[in-house]
Structure formats: C-alpha cells, structure tokens
C-alpha cells in the first residue's frame, strides 16, 4: 500500500497540485516546498537554507462510519506547509529559506529506513507522527547524529517518563495532560462522579488509566467502569445497547475513552440517565480545535482555511508548532546552523507564541511543551485549562501532566 500524498509544488502565493506518484521498493513520496513570494530578499547575501522533514506513519485510521468528517489526505502536512510559509515570510528579512520535506508511509513500510534516508540527505529537524515504539527506534538511531526530533503524534505518557529521550521534544499533550485538563474542569463544575467507558484498543486503555490518575489527583471518583465490546459498528444497535450498558450507577458525567472513534459518538442522549459525555467524544480536551478563535487564533485559523479550504485539526497544529519553533530558533540566533538552533530551542530563552494566550515553553525535565489545553464541544469552545484555582509554584500549566518532582524521566548520556 502506497502513501497517499501527491507531489505538490508551492509557488509564490499558492500551492499548485500536480499529479504524480512515485513508486519503488520502499514507496516513499518526497515533497519539497520552497516558498518564495516574488520579492527579492533584503540583501544579495547568500540565502541560508534550513530543511525540515515531516515523517508520518499512521497505522490505524478511524472507521468509515459516516461521511460526516472525511479525513484529509494532507492532515498534518498542511499545518507544516502553513508554518513553512510563515517562516519564509520572516525568512525574507533574514536571508533564510525554509524547506519542508514530507514523507507519508504505509503501515507496513520501514519507518527507520525512511528516517535514515532523510538524515542522509542532510535534514536535521524531523517531525514525527509515528507510534511510540517506532519513535523510540528512530530516537535511538538518531542519537549519534545531528538530529532533533519533534513528537507530533504519540500521546503516550511513557515517552515523557521512563522512555524519555534527550533528542525528542514532545509537542502534543500527553494523555495525562489531556485527562488532567478535563478533570480540572469537571471538578470545577462539581461533576465529581464519573462513569468511565473504555474502548477495545490499547490506546483506549491508556487513556482510561490517565483518567483514573486524574480523578485521584483532582478529587473525583470513578463510580463505575465498563469496557465497550459490542463490536465495530454501533450505529444501529446503540439505541438498545447503551441504556442497558449505562444502567445501575449514580454519576454526574460519562467519560469515554474511544480514541479511534468507534462508538463514542453514539452514547450521547442514549444513556439510562440524562448525563453529558466527555473525553474522546463530547467535551473533548485537545491541543487545538476549529472552534478556537481567541488570542489571535482567528488569524491562524483563517489563514489555514483560506489556503487549504478546510479547518485546522489538532494534528495540523502539532506539525505547525515545531516548525515555528525551528523558525524562531533561526531568527533569534540569526543562523541556520543545527547546533545553534537546537541549543536555542532547548534553552530557557525559548518561547513560542502559539495563539493560546500565553507563551509556550518546554519542560526541561522531559522536553514536553507546556501549553493551555482547549476543552471543546463539536461546535463551540467550552473552556480552556488550566482552570482557575489550581495552584502551582512555578507555572499553572504544570498542573497538567506529570510534574517535575514526580518525573521518572532520566536522560541517559
């Protein structure tokens, strides 16, 4: 199975799609984007090129249960392209040019080989959307090389804890951060009794574990817990199954862990008692949402919408952010050198304006990007965590996720 991106060339203000898939023993599609705006750089000095890659391998896609939200082929990549465009607008004033190479792999293809090919080509900044074990294999292979990795797709807490790596910066929130963000809001609302429903997948179980920890941390109680195992397509049967499934408990809110989106949407309005839904569906904690327009986000959302004719997804944002970080590094150090940019990003000077109302910075103990987390319903933003009243010595953002004193991350060497 071949990856789905076609070759795309971006010229001046737009992206012109041209067809053409490249096949080979390892079916890799390389897409390069150099965006010029038709204006000469400020001086005639040589342009410094800064190359970034986005490597994606999605092993399981959501079931095609409806045509409500058709997942875009370029999800993630589009966020990267917009970021490159913004970086290059700034780059004009700095004699710097940013270039993005996108690689999309089929589930059975060799991610490590694809990664090594990118680094062999001289790319030092690689954004990854791969499963946790693949990320670790790549991180370990990258250790002796001049590479900085950005995790844009694996929410696993163990990657921030016992499996942390010094060359991996985590852009997306961990499951712990998402669960904590939601828990703070539910507890603030005094909805402390939770009915937890967990899906069939490993990721759902991990999400459920994070919900358990969050309940303990913030003083909520999981009064009932059930695993949904009615099979893949619940659309017709939910009507009869859900009421029975949710009987027999006195709770305030149903928290669901269904990361792939198999059944979570079909719980609402069918539960035995009239209760709202939260978690992977319903009131959802997330890094980004199309409903978000505060703190200048409307500007980013409208730029994205105009360019790609669809809304920016969390994955788009999670690829957008690290490319902006590299851009900031190049601007602030006035350099395209890998070591200078990497050292700047990892320094205490680094801050990213991420359209979430305050600066985003990296946790020095596990390189997780600390950030406000949006709590959104389908068509309206409900709240943004951290919630008022949860205290912290140094940063309120660190009330979400594993804090430094509890961290089990040890960077070796």
């Amino acid at each position, binding site marked *: 199975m071949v990856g789905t991106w076609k070759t795309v060339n971006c010229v001046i203000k737009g992206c012109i799609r041209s067809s053409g898939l490249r096949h080979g023993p390892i079916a890799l599609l390389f897409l390069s984007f150099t965006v010029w*705006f038709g*204006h000469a750089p*400020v001086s005639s000095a040589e342009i410094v090129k800064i190359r970034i890659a986005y490597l994606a391998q999605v092993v399981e896609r959501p079931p095609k249960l409806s045509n409500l939200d058709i997942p875009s082929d370029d999800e993630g990549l589009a966020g990267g392209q917009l970021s490159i465009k*913004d970086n290059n*607008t*700034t780059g004009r*004033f700095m004699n710097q040019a940013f270039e993005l190479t996108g690689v999309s792999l089929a589930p059975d293809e060799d991610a490590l080989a694809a990664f090594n090919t990118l680094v062999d080509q001289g790319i030092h900044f690689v954004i990854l959307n791969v499963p946790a074990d693949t990320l670790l294999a790549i991180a370990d292979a990258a250790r002796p090389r001049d590479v900085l990795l950005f995790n844009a797709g694996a929410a696993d807490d163990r990657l921030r804890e016992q499996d942390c790596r010094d060359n991996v910066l985590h852009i997306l929130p961990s499951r712990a951060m998402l669960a904590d963000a939601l828990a703070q809001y539910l507890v603030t609302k005094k909805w402390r009794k939770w009915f937890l429903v967990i899906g069939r997948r490993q990721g759902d179980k991990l999400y459920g574990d994070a919900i358990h920890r969050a309940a303990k941390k913030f003083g909520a109680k999981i009064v009932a817990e059930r695993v949904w195992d009615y099979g893949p397509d619940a659309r017709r049967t939910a009507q009869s199954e859900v009421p029975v499934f949710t009987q027999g408990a006195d709770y305030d809110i149903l928290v669901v862990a269904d990361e792939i989106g198999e059944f979570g949407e079909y719980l609402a309005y069918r539960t035995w008692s009239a209760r709202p839904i939260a978690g992977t569906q319903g009131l959802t904690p997330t890094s980004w949402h199309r409903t978000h327009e505060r703190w*200048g986000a409307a*500007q980013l959302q*409208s*730029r994205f919408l*105009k360019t790609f004719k669809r809304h920016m997804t969390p994955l788009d944002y999670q690829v957008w952010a690290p490319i902006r970080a590299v851009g*900031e590094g190049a*601007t*602030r150090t006035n350099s395209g050198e890998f070591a200078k940019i990497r050292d700047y990003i990892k320094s205490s000077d680094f*801050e*990213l*304006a991420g359209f979430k*109302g*305050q*600066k985003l910075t990296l946790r020095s103990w596990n390189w997780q990007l600390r950030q406000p987390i949006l709590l959104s319903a389908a068509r309206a933003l409900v709240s943004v965590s951290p919630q008022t009243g949860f205290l912290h010595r140094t*940063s*309120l953002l660190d009330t979400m996720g594993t804090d430094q004193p509890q961290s089990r991350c040890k960077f070796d060497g």
Partner: protein
Amino acid sequence: MKMLVSAVISGSLLFSTIGIAKAYTVYVTNEKDNTVSLIDTDTLEVTATLNVGQRPRGITLTLDGKFLLVCASDDDTVEVYDAKTRQLVKNLPSGPDPELFILHPTGNPLYIANEDDNLVTVIDLEKNKVIAEVPVGVEPEGMGISPDGAILVNTSETTNMAHFIDTETYEIVANVLVDSRPRFAEFSADGARLFVTSEIGGTLSIIDPVTRKITNKITFEIPGVRPEAIQPVGVRATKDGSKIFVALGPANRVAVINGKTLEVEKYLLVGQRVWQLAFTPDDKLLFATNGVSNDVSVIDVDRLKVVKSIAVGRFPWGVTISAD
C-alpha cells in the same frame, strides 16, 4: 468676608482639581457590538453610540477633525464618517482585514495594516486611491510614524519584528527583532524613541530610531499577578516625555514608567483586559479601553489615579480623542 474668600478659594481649588477647561470627545470602538461610543471629557459620560461596520478596531480622526475613520476589520474596509453629522460618507479601498492604521503627520496619506495579507496599504485620502502596498512580516498590526513623517514603523505579530519603512520610497530600510508577538509601535513626541510592546514576550522595547537598535527592554512585575498574565499592548507617552503608560492586558493594569529613569513607578488597576490608551490633547486625562469588563477607565495623569470607569459597548478596543 472670610467665608466668602474661603468659598472662592475652595471653588477655584475644585476647578483646578478637575483641571479641564475644554471638553473633548473620546471615540471608542466596541469590537463585538459593531458600534463606536462617544464620551464627553467634561461630564465623563457616554453621549452617543454610533453604528459602524463589523468588528471595528482601529479608529482615528483626520487632522482637520472633520472626519472619523474606523477600521471595520470583518467588512474589509475603512469607513469614513462625518464627525459632526456622524453619517457614513464613504468607504476607503483599504485592502482585506484592516486592523490598525495611522495618518501621516500632515494628514495624508493613511497607512493601514492588513493583517490577513501581510501588507501595509497606503491610501491617498484626497484621491481615494491605493498608492502603495508594502509586503511586511506575518500578521501586521502596530503602526507608528515618526513626528517628521519620514519613517513608518509596522510591527508583525508572528514574525516578531518592527519594520522601518521609508515613506518616500515605501522600501523597508530596517527590521528590528523584538520579543514575541509585538502589538503596538509609538514614537515619542520628540522622535527620539520608538516604543514597541511585546504581548507574549511581556516586555516594552525602547528602540533608538537612528541606530535602529533596542536600547532598553522594560519588564513588569506585579505582586500577586502571574507573569504570563502581563501582556503589554497599547503604549503612549506624554508629550513632554516625563511619563510612559503601558496597557498590560489580562494583568488588568496600566503601568506608569518614569520617562527619564525608565523605572516602573506604579501600576494602576483598571478594568479587565486593558487594550489601548489615548491622551486628551492637553495630556491631562488618559483613557484606557477594558475589553473584557466592557468599560473605559479614566486616568488623571497628574495625580496618577483612576478617577472613573465608564460603561461602553461590548469588547471596547480602540480609542481616539478629538483635538478640540
């Protein structure tokens, strides 16, 4: 006799405490109500509310005081109102999403920041035409002009730069990198300093317009207020340069900086999410728009006290004051 004298004295003391001989008109854009509130500086009351275009932000009066210009950002236009009759006279070809603008000191042309398109658009008000477009950084907003009109400064929020634009050639002659998310650029009255606020960086940069280098960076510390809540936006200085005022956003305060020592002397508690500032022409009163509490704070500049809060429309943002 004694009583009469003391009455006269207390009367004149009362008069000088208010300190205002003239009444000016304050114009405030209400971003979510699509209106402009008019405030009389004598009574400190709202005297009228004007319906304008969608999402009004930047607002200014022409030099002759005859027309009120309003950036109707979501209508992609700059509206021109007759200041006396308050009727809409015309729309200017502003380019998409005009956020803020500034007039050349001579009154023409008008320089507009088009935030969606990364452009500064220059409009000749007499000819009603676009005479130049200057490509700048990502998300341009802040607009400042040197008192001699030679240099226009535009700040770009995501590129994090202050672009110096030559008003004769429309070329960018310098770019100064500032802290994250610059929002506002303002020259001192004598042209010797350029002030640029960084909302996410949390600082005020003071730039030498000749060397085009940052000479001072001012940080703010408010007891009991989280550092990340200190988000400077609007900045204004008195004409004599003695005091610089900075609106600090969700910190809900206006900082007062000593213009000589550059020390922060005081923080004035105003309303919630304070955005922009404007002086009356005599520098006696400073008006601050509070976006989230939907009101305007009136600051007595001599006494450094907030003397009143005036309720306006929803999400007040821009503010400008008539010259007479």
